[in-house]
């Protein structure tokens, strides 16, 4: 095994494991340099299988490279670097350690050439991400992390059953394009979709991610859902059902984000919305659509990380304020955070000259090329809706609207540097999409910057903006949440257990009640005879018995003498 075949993800996992045990100086060095080294090593992986390990009767392809693997591994490594920079001074070292293990295993999935390796890294990811949520060290984060872990362990079990059934069917462990036509392939698809935040298990994401620390949520936003996008891209391109699942996720994200008050929950719903775009693209399945899904995952990780860093900076500098009803007017004292947040918001809305524009429009173009009118109309409406729920709503309620009277400063240098770096990437990729297009899985000649495309996109977005300000009176934030599918396991499930156990509680009471009556009657009977007033407790009995014994002895002696 040469150095260029060593799994790049494992380097990051090992780095994460040593972080808690080294001095601050060495820790800072590892956090800042190791992701860059991993990024370099990602590009040393050649095409095809690079590293195999024997496991039971199978030969695992632990590292297998191609363009699709590299583009995801690249953006995961970039995210680990900038996220590490943002979280550099995080006092919970465990969070950074967990985040590196999490990021490393995501890269591990991206290079996995067989289903067993996918599964192993998949599970490490679930544990790493749970620890990231845990590291926030609040009672809420602990509970949310447990709910999160349960969903992901369930997803893991479903995935494992699918993998085993698929191997039993085909005899091959290879991870390649599949069609859902057997129990194995359906179960694998379901396992992948749970991590993508697909319905009905959507609620774990906005439930758990906003409970991370100011920096933890930045990591969480990047890896789990995008790894799911990667495995769907490789495993199920062109699977039609994904189009409808994606469209559902797109609108679900918008509608719930519109009703939400917590700024990081708004951004979490918008993750599901954005992943919906990618999944729709995978469902369409043409080269243009798959390129679009991959490109959109790349740009999304960057601008969503940026948005959550901006939200994290607000939380960090206001001592934990995260509800829109508590915030407002922060642009006056946090100009850098505000501007970076707005750049992220423009990018997620696909404004021309930002990264979202050059990636998302490929998916809509693919829907147009395939003459899928309904899908195309949904995507266009959703593009407008993204500007509505994330593009304007997030910056408006956090940095503008009413003056909350808060005057927090911009955050420390490392957090500012991380935000500026990502804001720069959002614009650089938007202005010069060439380098990103060059590393896409398929060759493309797509040209996003035509005059009609730019004008039409501006019309769509600015009129969406108009609708926001026209409807502002009814958009006022309230201290509310909206019920979601998680109600079924958080409320209904709890009620069901109470309901079902109530009968058994009564039965138990009846059985023990009757037993008690029986035991009591035995005790009473014994008490009657042996109690203080019982027949066996009478004291005069001793004298009588002595007299009886004397009489008996006398009689015995008389008989004895008479016999002689």
């Amino acid at each position, binding site marked *: 095994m040469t150095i260029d075949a060593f799994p790049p993800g494992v380097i990051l996992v090992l780095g994460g494991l040593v972080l808690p045990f080294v001095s601050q100086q060495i820790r800072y060095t590892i956090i800042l340099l190791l992701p860059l080294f991993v990024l370099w090593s990602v590009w040393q992986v050649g095409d095809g299988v690079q590293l195999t390990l024997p496991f039971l009767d199978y030969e695992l392809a632990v590292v297998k490279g191609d363009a699709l693997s590299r583009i995801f591994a690249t953006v995961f490594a970039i995210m680990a670097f900038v996220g590490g920079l943002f979280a550099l001074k995080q006092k919970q070292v465990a969070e950074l350690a967990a985040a590196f293990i999490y990021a490393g295993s995501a890269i591990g999935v991206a290079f996995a050439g067989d289903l067993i390796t996918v599964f192993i890294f998949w599970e490490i990811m679930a544990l790493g991400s749970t620890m990231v949520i845990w590291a926030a060290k609040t009672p809420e984060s602990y509970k949310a992390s447990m709910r999160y872990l349960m969903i992901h362990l369930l997803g893991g079990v479903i995935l494992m059953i699918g993998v085993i059934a698929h191997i039993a069917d085909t005899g091959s462990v290879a991870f390649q394009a599949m069609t859902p036509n057997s129990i194995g392939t359906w179960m694998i698809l379901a396992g992948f979709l749970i991590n993508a935040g697909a319905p009905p298990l959507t609620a774990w994401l906005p439930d758990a991610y906003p409970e991370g620390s100011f920096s933890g949520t930045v990591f969480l936003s990047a890896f789990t859902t995008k790894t799911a996008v990667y495995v769907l891209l490789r495993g199920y391109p062109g699977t039609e059902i994904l189009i409808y699942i994606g469209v559902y996720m797109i609108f679900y994200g918008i*509608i719930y984000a519109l009703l939400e008050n*917590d700024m990081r929950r708004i951004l979490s719903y918008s993750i599901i919305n954005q992943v919906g775009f990618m999944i729709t693209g995978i469902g369409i399945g043409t080269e243009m659509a798959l390129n679009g899904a991959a490109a959109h995952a790349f740009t999304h990780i960057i601008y969503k990380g940026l948005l959550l860093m901006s939200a994290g900076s607000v939380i960090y500098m206001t001592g934990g304020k995260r509800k829109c009803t508590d915030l407002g007017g922060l642009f006056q004292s946090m100009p850098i955070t505000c501007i970076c947040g707005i750049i992220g918001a423009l990018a997620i809305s696909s404004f021309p000259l930002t990264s979202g524009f050059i990636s998302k429009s490929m998916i809509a173009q693919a829907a147009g090329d395939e003459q899928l009118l309904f899908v*195309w109309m949904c995507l*266009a409406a959703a593009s407008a809706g993204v500007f509505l729920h994330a593009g304007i709503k997030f910056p408006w309620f956090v940095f503008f609207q009413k003056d909350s009277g808060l005057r927090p400063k911009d955050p420390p240098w490392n957090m500012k540097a991380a935000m500026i770096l990502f804001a720069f990437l959002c614009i650089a990729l938007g202005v010069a999409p060439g380098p990103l297009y060059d590393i896409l899985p398929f060759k493309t000649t797509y040209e996003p910057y035509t005059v009609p495309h730019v*004008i039409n996109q501006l*019309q769509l977005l600015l009129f969406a903006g108009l609708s926001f300000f026209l409807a502002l009176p009814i958009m006022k934030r309230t*201290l509310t*949440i909206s019920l979601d599918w998680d109600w079924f396991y958080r409320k209904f499930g709890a009620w069901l257990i109470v309901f079902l156990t109530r009968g058994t509680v009564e039965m138990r009471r009846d059985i023990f009640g009757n037993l008690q009556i029986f035991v009591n009657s035995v005790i009473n009977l014994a008490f009657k005879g042996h109690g203080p007033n019982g027949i066996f407790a009478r004291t005069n009995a001793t004298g009588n018995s002595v007299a009886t014994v004397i009489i008996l002895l006398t009689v015995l002696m008389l008989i004895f003498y008479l016999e002689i």
Partner: protein
Amino acid sequence: MNDDAKLHWLVRPNTIKHLWRWGYAILAVLVLADFVIHPHASFGIDGSFGFYSWYGLLTCLAMIVFSKGLAIFLKRKDTYYDD
């Protein structure tokens, strides 16, 4: 005027009035731009005059109204799940 001067220039009522005017002007120019551009429409409707403008406005208003309607059934106090 004194009160206004204390405010950040961006939130003075006068500035906001100007922002609305400029906003409407930009929207009008964008709609009129449909006369000059020649889009390569994938379907018939997306090439029609003012399509992206009215579609963006109306679908967004529809989504807001729909979410408000859904809120009647799904909205709860944010302490709903607290024990």
